[in-house]
């Protein structure tokens, strides 16, 4: 989406969260609370096969025994898991073949978000699988993709239509007992996206999914599974906006990526969940497990721009299992007001000659706390593994905090690991210099922040980069007096 200067200016003037509106669509919501019956009910509502139901129940059993992790550098009031409704789907939900059949109110919501399917169709080369609350309601460009043998659909649909693929791969990268939130997600995930790229196929367009939490008090549990078969390539975009709410909303997604021999997956995220208001009230809790597995010569790149959520707990990781595989993590995390982010990555080097790169840019403003947490682990058999990590923090004002928690575990003597970290503050001298050249303070900050984030912004696909740049500016609006 291209934004004109004028639009940008107008948006900058609006400090409140711009996507804070409700959509009045009838929903089919399960009663609050979580027990085996609810798990079974979710599975039943989605008409899932028995193996899936059993899988969910095993996850639920494991989750019951687990405790919420407390090691992250964040403080918040823990959600009451019995006070959440675990399923909500837009009601009038036949499978649509054309836009005309879609609930006009829903289309209207898309328009407000600036991502109307109409518009998307015109925009060259982007197929969108929009997740509204938890069920996919619109999928476009499916035909073009189908011609190449690419499967891009909701995970529910994949469970129905491609059970062999789902059954084979789900939970192989993020096991259902991996951690508290992953187990919860495995038990109750409502929907999400599924993507399969066949051998040797280069996906001709950027695949994108927009997430949106919509039902008050409804946790959202997305499940994404991307499989790139041998020698294939796919670039996947995920963008998020959420309506504003007073009570906290829980979001615990799981994303699994599988890059087989010689395959490459680029996964880009722009995350803009509601961060809470200026007093720190409300906002989304974002506890996400994202992990990718690289086979021989494969490559996975995670790029994320995190501007939203009240609390973020997120570590997109790569398991570099195959020899010569490559893992990359590029991240910009912005926190303002009372936001807290604990984010980073894990690079697990198992194969020989594996390489990983971590570039993390944290920007803290207001009274927020921004932490980078990263693990670089080199296994004893991973000869010649290399890692380069760079963590830069930019502070605005005196009340915010930036923290870096790098963990390095090298069990092979041939490993080469580099870690660089910098912390800087936007200086009055920098601002005055810009002012003297006719650039006002607001614009100067945008310029400095964009410069700081450039290495990561450059990794995003073009249309996403523009949106991300705009988000950075909106997120930091008014943060320096």
């Amino acid at each position: 989406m291209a934004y004109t200067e004028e639009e940008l200016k107008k948006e900058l003037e609006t400090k409140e969260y711009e996507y804070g509106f409700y959509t009045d669509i009838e929903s089919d919501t399960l009663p609050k609370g979580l027990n085996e019956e609810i798990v079974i009910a979710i599975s039943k509502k989605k008409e899932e096969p028995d193996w899936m139901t059993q899988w969910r129940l095993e996850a639920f059993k494991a989750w019951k025994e687990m405790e919420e992790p407390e090691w992250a550098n964040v403080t918040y009031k823990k959600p009451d898991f019995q006070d959440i409704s675990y399923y909500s789907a837009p009601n009038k939900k036949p499978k649509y073949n054309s836009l005309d059949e879609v609930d006009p109110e829903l289309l209207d919501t898309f328009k407000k978000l600036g991502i109307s399917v109409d518009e998307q169709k015109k925009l060259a080369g982007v197929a969108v699988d929009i997740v509204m609350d938890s069920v996919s309601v619109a999928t476009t460009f499916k035909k073009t993709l189908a011609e190449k043998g690419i499967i891009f659909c909701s995970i529910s649909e994949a469970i129905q239509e491609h059970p062999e693929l789902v059954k084979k791969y789900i939970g192989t990268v993020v096991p259902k007992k991996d951690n508290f939130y992953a187990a919860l997600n495995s038990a109750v995930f409502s929907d999400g996206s599924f993507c399969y790229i066949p051998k040797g196929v280069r996906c001709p367009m950027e695949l994108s999914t927009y997430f949106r939490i919509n039902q008050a008090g409804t946790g959202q549990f997305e499940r994404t599974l991307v499989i790139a078969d041998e020698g294939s390539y796919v670039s996947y975009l995920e963008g998020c906006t959420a309506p504003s709410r007073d009570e906290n909303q829980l979001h615990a997604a799981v994303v699994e990526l599988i890059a087989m021999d010689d395959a490459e997956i680029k996964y880009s995220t722009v995350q803009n969940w509601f961060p809470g208001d200026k007093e720190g009230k409300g906002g989304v809790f974002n506890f996400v497990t994202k992990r990718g597995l690289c086979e021989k010569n494969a490559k996975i790149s995670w790029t994320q721009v995190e501007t939203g959520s009240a609390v973020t707990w997120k570590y997109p990781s790569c398991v570099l299992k195959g020899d010569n595989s490559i893992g990359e993590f590029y991240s910009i995390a912005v926190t303002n007001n009372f936001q807290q982010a604990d984010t980073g990555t894990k690079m697990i080097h198992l194969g020989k000659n594996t390489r990983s790169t971590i570039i993390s840019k944290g920007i803290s403003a207001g009274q927020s706390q921004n932490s980078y947490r990263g693990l670089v682990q080199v296994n004893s058999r991973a000869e010649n593994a290399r890692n380069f990590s760079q963590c830069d923090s930019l502070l605005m004002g005196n009340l915010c905090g930036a923290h870096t928690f790098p963990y390095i575990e090298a069990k092979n003597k041939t490993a080469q690991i580099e870690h660089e970290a910098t912390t800087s503050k936007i200086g009055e001298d920098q601002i005055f210099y810009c002012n003297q050249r006719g650039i006002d303070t607001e614009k100067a900050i945008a310029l400095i922040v964009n410069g700081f984030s450039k290495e990561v912004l450059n990794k995003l696909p073009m249309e996403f980069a523009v949106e991300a740049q705009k988000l950075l500016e909106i997120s930091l609006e008014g943060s320096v007096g």
Partner: protein
Amino acid sequence: MLEIKNLHASVEDKKILKGINLEVNAGEVHAIMGPNGSGKSTLASVIAGKEEFDIKKGTISLDGEDLEELAPEERAHKGIFLSFQYPVEIPGVTVTNFIKTAINESRKARGLEDMPANQMLKLIREKSELLEIDRKFLSRSLNEGFSGGEKKRNEIFQLAMMEPKLAILDETDSGLDIDALRIVANGVNKLRGKDNAIIVITHYQRLLDYIVPDYVHVLHDGKIVKSGTKELALELEEKGYDWIKQEATV
């Protein structure tokens, strides 16, 4: 053009400028000289509007308009340009992107559209040739890893791009070797015209061999203690600042 009357300025209650009077007309080049700590850089910062300085007394006006209430960027929009003694680094922002933003922000303030890209490119090419700047230099991050000479040359490049009404060069000669000095001075001289004015702040006479001033002022302890023509600079070079100090105390 620029009129400074009885200017007193302090930083954190420390008096630095103690009654400056200066009038600069269009087409003129003024040199301000003086020993370290005499207030030269403070004067430059006060004219540019740096907030840490408090104006206690007196006025600064540009073309009859009082500058006191104007923010630094508004002064820039009116045509005041300061070439910094210590230019700051802005990582990730290229020289080109920075100057483009500066020019377009100033145009916006004057109610003009952004400068068309081809015109901008042409201007950049022209001015970088004038200052013998390598094209590769333009895509580097602003002042990051620049040598002292490169930083100063970049300041003058921006000056050339922005074509200000009043340019203040704060110790532009420091950190320059003789070749760079000649190039920079050459660039500045080409920008001299009947409609603009230049204030050259310097410690040494050296720069004034290349940028020949119409007037020379000597600043000491926050006051202009002596004014004259370019010969005054030569005299200072020969005798040092001590005789001025003595004269001032007498």
